[in-house]
């Protein structure tokens, strides 16, 4: 059975396992991106994060990003794994691997993938701070929406 290329998991992610899924003889480059849990954001200390996903739809949206990449960069192959649940500082939250015949496409497509994840994939991050917690409400990480409205500015 072939391993799925687009995965939401509650287990730690192996960078090498994701990378291996896109390695093949036609590839001359593999760009691998790992997104990790940052301790400090704009002077505020994060204790841990909790990610939640609409798992079935999130995996479909990751696959859609892979299809978009294959269309924009013919010959590129993508694998993405995103972790959910409770993550501590330094844990890997997402790994994106893109292989292509030449390196330029792999780099560009990998960057495209993370930007698209932040736009269309139904995954949410809840920050736990020393003095409270909130769901992070947009990709710029500047605004939290604990009640569905912009209320807390982190800047």
């Amino acid at each position: 059975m072939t391993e799925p290329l687009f995965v939401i998991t509650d287990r730690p992610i192996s960078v090498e396992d994701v990378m291996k899924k896109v390695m093949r003889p036609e590839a001359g480059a593999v760009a691998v991106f790992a997104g990790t849990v940052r301790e400090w954001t704009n002077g505020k200390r994060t204790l841990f994060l909790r990610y939640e996903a609409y798992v079935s739809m999130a995996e479909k949206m990751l696959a859609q990003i892979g299809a978009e990449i294959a269309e924009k960069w013919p010959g590129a192959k993508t694998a993405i794994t995103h972790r959910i649940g409770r993550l501590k500082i330094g844990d890997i939250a997402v790994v994106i691997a893109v292989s292509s015949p030449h390196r330029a496409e792999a780099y560009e497509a990998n960057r495209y993938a993370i930007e698209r994840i932040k736009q269309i994939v139904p995954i949410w991050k809840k920050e736990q701070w020393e003095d409270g917690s909130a769901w992070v409400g947009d990709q710029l990480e500047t605004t939290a929406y604990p009640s569905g409205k912009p209320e807390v500015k982190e800047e």
Partner: protein
Amino acid sequence: MIRLLFFAHLGEQIGEREVMWPHVPETVKQLKDEVEERYGVSLGRVMTAVNEEYVRDEAPLHAGDTVAFIPPVSGG
């Protein structure tokens, strides 16, 4: 009957992640209005997916649909 899914802060505010909604409104917009009124939440910036596809507020609803309310996402 349609199935509603609430995520992130919406799930916490409403106190349920999944709700069976007996009435089937004609459009997503009408459903949003009903949900806002029933739970006192704001769906202004919330995207909607019907059966795992993003849809506009004008999209029609049918019995058996799964409707997910998707607050601004923050994966990655």
